[in-house]
């Protein structure tokens, strides 16, 4: 994809219904979000964390995650994501997602590198139901803001993309990258 095409705006707010049909947690569900909004929020966060899981290995997604990582954001590689991310020169740390979701609720946790907690958590590429459960802990028991930039609508996040076709998903990641590269 050319750079021009990459920054073309795509609508990521459509089909904002839980990817698992019955995954309706309650009255509070994620606000559908456009990629530029996500990009700006990440760019402006004091200490953002990107969580990436076992669905990162596919070529396009991997390439986008590496590019996002190269902008300097710290990455928690959950599941087996480290296998594809470990040798790419990123600030990447393996962590178990279940444990991570709990540590993020602990104001005393000093983060993956011991340098302090995070004010914004963004995630993508995690087994759908697994991510949904893990972030339900954050939603209910922490003050941390959570964005889902995965190709699934995640009701437990604060803001989320809708359920996206692959090409839209990749284009949305390009928009986020463009925002991050602006800063």
């Amino acid at each position, binding site marked *: 994809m050319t750079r021009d095409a990459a920054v073309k705006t795509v609508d990521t707010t459509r089909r904002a219904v839980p990817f698992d049909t019955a995954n309706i947690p309650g009255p509070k569900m994620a606000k559908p979000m456009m990629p530029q909004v996500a990009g700006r929020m990440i760019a402006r966060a004091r200490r953002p964390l990107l969580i990436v899981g*076992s669905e990162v290995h596919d070529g396009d997604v991997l390439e986008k995650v590496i590019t996002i990582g190269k902008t300097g954001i710290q990455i928690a590689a959950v599941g087996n994501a480290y296998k594809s991310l470990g040798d790419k020169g990123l600030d990447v740390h393996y962590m178990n997602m279940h444990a991570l*979701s709990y540590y993020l609720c602990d104001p005393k946790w000093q983060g993956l590198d011991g340098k302090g907690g995070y004010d914004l958590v963004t995630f993508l590429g995690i087994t759908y139901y697994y991510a949904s459960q893990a972030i339900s802990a954050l939603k209910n028991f922490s003050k941390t803001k959570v964005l889902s930039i995965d190709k699934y609508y995640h009701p437990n996040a604060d803001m989320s993309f809708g359920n996206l076709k692959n090409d839209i998903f990749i284009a949305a990641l390009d928009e986020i990258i463009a925002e991050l590269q602006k800063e």
Partner: protein
Amino acid sequence: MAIKKGKFVIEGLENVQINIGKVIEEGAERLIEGPTPKPGITSLRSWDYRIIDRYHPVYTPTSDMCDYCTYGKCDLTGNKEGACGIDLEGQSARQALMTSIMGAACHSAHGRHLLHYLIKRYGEDHPIDVGPSNLKAPLTETIMGIQPETIGDFLPVLAYVEEQLTQLTASANTGQEGSARDFESKALHAGMLDLLGMEVADIIQISCMGLPKAEENTAMAEIGMGILDQGKPVVVCVGHNIAAPAYILDYMDENALFDRIEIAGLCCTAHDMTRYNKTARIIGSMSKELKYIRSGIPDVLVTDEQCVRADILKEASELHIPVIATNEKITYGLPDRSGDSVDDIIDDLASGKEKGALILDLEKVGELVPRLAMKVSPIRKEKGITALPDDEEFGKLVAKCTKCQQCTLDCPQNLPIADAMVAAVSGDISQFEVLHDKCVGCGRCDYSCPVKIPVLNVIEKGAQRVIREEKGKVRIGRGQIGDPEIREEGRNLVLGTTPGVIAIVGCGNYPDGTKDVHDVVEEMLKRSYIIISSGCAAMDIGMYKDDEGKTLYEKYPGRFIKGNLLNTGSCVSNAHIAATTIKVASIFAGRKTKGNWEEIADYVMNRIGAVGLAWGAYSQKAFAIATGCNRLGIPVVAGPHGTKYRRAFIGKPYKKDDWNVFDARDGSTVNVEPAPEHLMITAETFDEMMPLLAKMCIRPSDNSLGRAIKLTHYLELSEKYMNKMPDDWHVYVRSEADLPVAKREQLLKTLETEHGWKIDWDRKKITEGPMRKVDVSFQPTNVPRLCKEVSK
């Protein structure tokens, strides 16, 4: 004078009548060795708090609401309180309690059903015989403080379990318990009761029904969807309770019917059928239930209890398969025909007048089922009844798919079904073969397809080639681990020279197919771990063959020593896995067991490198088992679906004070490495799970040789499956002797350069860095009263 059972009137107190129902043998009370025989719901609360303070309950709600009572629905999002005052944390903990209670009730009620039946058949005085063991009922002894000798001795045990479960259930009512912490203590209590109920159920069936008694080399049973001769009448028993299938097997034996009728089981009943009669066979786990019914192969379905699909009657009747329900817990609205003649019932079922029958007279079931199968089978076979489409229909169905993806959205595994449909249109059905293994056979996709494609049937039709080849072997469930085996292996376990015991347990709700279970077992056996399995996981281990056509059960022996693969049996045989740790504490370390739960659990947690893997756990029973194991100090790893249990017990390695223990020799406090790091946690993928298992086998009591062995596997598995050294390996190093020999020099260098440790290179010794030193006499404990100085 010996006191007997009966009624007594005391002279001078004629209005007072004393009833003596059960006489405790002289000395029985004196057996109690610990402070908590028959613990009530708060007796072990301080132990539970010790657990919870280190392994924090982590809640991942599936719903942010509570609709338990008519005040609700209440929105508890963000840990708000509902109308009754409970917050989301409390409600989540209450659900953990209810889940544990359900599981415990299920196993205990199973035990109660068996106990009634076996006492009726064999008498209360029938002796317990579990094989070569003095410690015959380790959980019963540790919890109840008694040493049962006869099956009748289990009557008060189950009465205790039932009473406790009633108390616990009461505390979940609105307006009762409100503290998450105490809900968790109660959930741990229910988990412990679950272990006890399971032990009773399995010991009595082993003792009375001739099931293998701690035998290390039991026969092999055939397993798989492709094992039965479909030309013969086929009987399939579904569930967990051997009572009814035993009568069927007896009748078939007595009437020499094994050559004429195929009989097999689905789910844990299958294990116990093979334990009872080697001729029986195993189709597979619960995830095969709907698939096998839809195949149309069974001519009669016999249900007992647990893990039976709620729609089994509907599904079976569509294919004219009569259902015989044999247990009062599952009756499907069927007419109770227990009092009718076998001939009349057969006529009504064979003619299709009735879809099934509830028959609680098990002797009648024994005669009826084989005769019914022989009568129904020719009729069904002539019609060729199956739910699966023929080739022509299959072609039309796959072409109908609009690729809308609705099935994927409804599928609990989010399987890419439309891709397989598209490939099949161009003649490639291989994707269905892959889907067949990953599909848990739930049938949700059938309901979701807007163009009415019977998706599961299409998958199964497309996978016929692999299904026909699905033939494996399982070593028949052995029951307990005998005392002599513990004597031989206990030392290796406690010192760590056997890297660990991995219990492969639970159901078939795997995140990525059954093969994972086989693969983890193979890897860990090669690394000399002891693998003990039970239930559906034990079946799935035997489903795959190597290039020479051998399953893991055929390649690895079944003794309780390193590098061996054991199958204890069905779901209730899980009790023996947990009980093995008690045996090690008692036989190897001489710890007193009777009424002494806390001390035993403390020993297990600090010294025995055992971990459970419930990779496909789905049921409340599996959660109860895991929670019971947790109270006994055994950590459990679950697959990603396990997050839907909504509660885990996760340690915080970065919170140093959480990892203080006492040295029992003098009561001093020692800050130890986080071992075991968690008590219940999930992993997202197989790769992530592998090193996690190795890490969860590390214990503070490991000697240096043992620690070096455990670290070797932790490092190697992490490098093999995660392409990295673990971040925390150095935390587990107390001296250079703890380092894996082959990599010692290289690791010392890493400790120096990356972690700032000081190394004396002349002597190749660590001089500064570790959090503590190795001390071979260290006696780690979390219980102050077990320290010598304190107890003085």
